[in-house]
């Protein structure tokens, strides 16, 4: 079929609109990347310099070394991975229990979700006092547990509905076929929920990776995640925009890489439910 003028015009219009939207959203990212490789004099030049005169990787060495970016990267990875793993273990079991066995009826699952409705500011001071009482301020343990508290309700809520959507007779047939409850869960329920599990794992990782508020309150010098390092570069009158951009780039890379790596699960997982 030969496309009519109207159809191809509409398609062109749509492509243009998509380009416009992408441009608006990706421009800051592009600017961040460019700034990260600019030498110091070109950061805030007027008129703006769109491509650096020579590519300067000094921002990265400065950010990683002098500003503690390397330690920040390691600490962020440790906190985000630790929190994601722990949240997944707790969340997957809890969600299966809520979804399959209606543990606690509607009340319990909703109470768990309600944790997310609480503004973080409301609990900041109590949580600070809480961790101080245990002597856990400025520790990986505190940060990982704190993030787990926020991740688990979200994971529960998403996976609960996902597990509910899996036809229970599939697990029942496994039981009749010789499996224990545990085997039926591992062999049938978990693989079927895999897209959703991957999606919530990624979102948990991103949340823990980005989190700033509690990281600032609960840590000092022993644990410094990347988001906490950024504002320290803006103190004083010599703001190191190149290093800031470099750290921001370093912070963005793992998340972007993970998203691309897990892309094929995300589409199905984020549609929250509806397998078959």
């Amino acid at each position, binding site marked *: 079929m030969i496309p009519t003028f109207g159809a191809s015009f509409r398609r062109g219009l749509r492509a243009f609109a998509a380009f416009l939207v992408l441009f608006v959203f990706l421009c800051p990212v592009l600017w961040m990347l460019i700034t990260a490789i600019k030498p110091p004099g070109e950061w805030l030049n007027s008129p703006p310099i769109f491509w650096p005169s020579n590519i300067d990787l000094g921002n990265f060495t400065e950010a990683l070394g002098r500003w503690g970016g390397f330690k920040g990267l390691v600490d962020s990875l440790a906190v985000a991975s630790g929190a994601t793993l722990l949240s997944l273990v707790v969340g997957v079991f809890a969600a299966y229990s809520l979804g399959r066995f209606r543990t606690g009826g509607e009340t319990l699952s909703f109470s768990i979700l309600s944790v997310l409705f609480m503004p973080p500011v409301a609990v900041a001071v109590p949580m600070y006092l809480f961790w101080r009482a245990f002597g856990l301020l400025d520790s990986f343990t505190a940060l990982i547990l704190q993030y787990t508290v926020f991740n688990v309700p979200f994971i529960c809520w998403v996976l609960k509905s996902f597990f509910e959507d899996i036809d229970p*007779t*599939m697990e*029942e047939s*496994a*039981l*009749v*076929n010789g499996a*224990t409850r545990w085997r039926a869960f591992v062999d*049938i329920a978990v693989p079927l929920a895999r897209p959703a599990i991957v999606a919530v794992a990624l979102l948990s990782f991103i949340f823990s990776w980005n989190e700033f508020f509690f990281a600032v309150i609960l840590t000092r010098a022993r644990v410094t995640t990347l988001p906490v390092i950024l504002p320290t570069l803006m103190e004083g009158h010599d703001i190191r925009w190149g290093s800031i951009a470099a750290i921001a780039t370093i912070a963005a890379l793992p998340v972007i890489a993970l998203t691309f790596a897990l892309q094929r699960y995300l589409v199905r997982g984020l549609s929250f439910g509806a397998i078959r």
Partner: protein
Amino acid sequence: MAEVRLRGIRKSYGPVQVFDNFALDIRDGELLCLLGPSGSGKSTLIRLIAGLEPLEAGSIFIGPRDVTALEPRHRHIGMTFQGYALYPHLSVRRNLSYPLQVRKIADAEIARRVTSTAAQLGIGHLLDRRIRQISGGEQQRVAIGRAIIQEPELYLLDEPISNLDASLRESVRGELRRLQQTLGATMVMVTHDQMDALAVADRIAVLQQGKLQQIGTPRDLYRRPANLFVARFIGRLRMNFLSGRVAEGEGGAPMLHGDGFSLALPVEIARRLDSARGEIVVGFRPEAVEILPTQVAGAISVVAAGELFHGEQTIELFDRGEEQVQAMLAVPLGLKRGSSAWLRPAPDALHFFDRETGERLADKDATREETR
């Protein structure tokens, strides 16, 4: 090999009691159909036998073993589910081998059994496909394959035919029957379709609201329904029902009088009625009726209301006041709508029921051995 005995079964869902003191015997090597409308408890019953639902009271025996307290995996049954319950993330091969892998059977033995089971069901060419990539009929074979590969003593099939296209059903009935006979296994099949049950079963147990209405061979149920419920439920065409009262006819012979008809009542039934009194429902199947142009003794006055042509047979529709009656004939009569006619049911094809209790009124060759 295994017979199954259910004793004193009690089961409720919340406030709804499904079974109370329910008993059933399934014979070794038979194909028993559990037949009933939705909500009759038939699926619950096989789930109880499988151990998928907890029992409140009673016991279940498979062969000599008391399995009441055993987990499903220790009951040694092969089961298929209504939606087949195949594992969509695994290949056909892995679906078939799953029960053997879980039970840690040697790889060589698994491979051998997968090959022979697949060959037996004609699904050898599908082994490396995903479940989503095969048709409904093929999925049904895989589900059956996954049950028989375990070589169990007892098969439980939950609505195995219902999800199939009408064109497939007839051939699948035949295959199921043949398979069960080759395996020589005890099979319990749940169905809501009485045609499936009549076609394949050795015996049928009719359930309604957790009560066993009748158990017997398909012939028994068709020819001698134990009550009004079974009479209504069994048969491709609904049985015709008329109600009437007992009276004495000429020469003292007992008669059943109703609106527009009077039928001779068999003496055996009339004798039992002294105690029963009240109204009687007489039933006769559309396939056991003659249509006459004039009134004769034992005929029922009706008005022609139309015709349904079904090829090898025709269904004639009649009105009797508010009620409708139908008859099945080999040749269409071409009766004019609104014209009068008389139906004469074959005297030995009349079924009499107590209107109040719905129970069949015993006739002379009554054998209560099959019905309970």
